């Protein structure tokens, strides 16, 4: 299976696609599809055919959204693609990947601790994972633009 075929798997789910920078393709998807995308990646490529590099969350206060980027690297070509989704700022909830991709642990725990994105089904989410306890005890998510820290 060559890269184009692998990317075709993602294109089927994509609302829109573009290019972040050369050799970095971007696929914008619905939040409810994210888990299904990774399930189909595992099914088609196997656990050795790709890896989840990191999860990046960004607070878009003006648009009242939280942007989630899943950076996925296709192996063995080392083709990096970004799966992007948007969550509502008031209630950012998305399905966890931790039971199918254990490597998502750090990314999900970090995004929860810093931005308050809840990954449904992740039993390890807790405040104070990275954030110092004096900040997390106040219920502040420091990477939110209006957190005031």
């Amino acid at each position, binding site marked *: 299976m060559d890269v184009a075929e692998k990317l075709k798997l993602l294109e089927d789910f994509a609302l829109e696609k573009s290019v972040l920078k050369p050799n970095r393709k971007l696929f914008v998807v619905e939040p409810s599809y994210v888990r299904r995308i990774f399930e189909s990646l595992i099914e088609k490529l196997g656990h050795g055919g790709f890896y989840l590099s990191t999860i990046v969350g960004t607070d878009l206060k003006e648009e009242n959204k939280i942007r989630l980027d899943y950076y996925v690297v296709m192996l063995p070509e080392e083709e990096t693609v970004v799966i992007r989704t948007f969550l509502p700022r008031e209630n950012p909830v998305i399905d966890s990947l931790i039971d199918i991709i254990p490597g998502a642990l750090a990314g999900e725990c970090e995004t929860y601790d810093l931005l308050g994105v809840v990954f449904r089904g992740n039993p390890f989410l807790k405040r104070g994972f*990275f*954030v*110092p306890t004096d*900040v997390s005890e106040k219920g502040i998510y*420091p990477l939110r633009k209006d957190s005031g*820290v």
Partner: protein
Amino acid sequence: MMQEQKARKTGYRIIRYSPWLVHFNTGACNGCDIEVLASITPLYDPERFGVKLSPSIRHGDILVVTGAVTKKAADRLKRLYDQMPCPKFVVAVGACAIDGGVFSKSYSVVGGADKVVPVAIYIPGCPPRPEAILDGLVKLLTALREEEVQNNGCS
């Protein structure tokens, strides 16, 4: 009193001849860590001063701290310092370890290493060159010979 002074002098002499370093990153960007590692390579040959890396914190004489001290790392830094045998000295390497640097106002940063442990020598730079780090260590050793360093972490 005399005995105490003598014991301290002996301790300082032992450290002066072969200071063993422990390197601890309290939240650095890795720039200073790279320079600390570079300064212990044969190119700069720190073993002419007897400087080498200690296998364990409990064998260490000098704690080399790099990076702004985050609130989470502050506990660990204090715990490491408490485990070192006496006499012990702390060297703060880089602008961040001195006073927090550009991160000093961050919600997760305490400040410099001196907020948590007594610091003997500050080495400025972002990052400092390996020569500067070795120069700082030699200055500390010179100060030990002159007995100018006040806080050895014990008395």
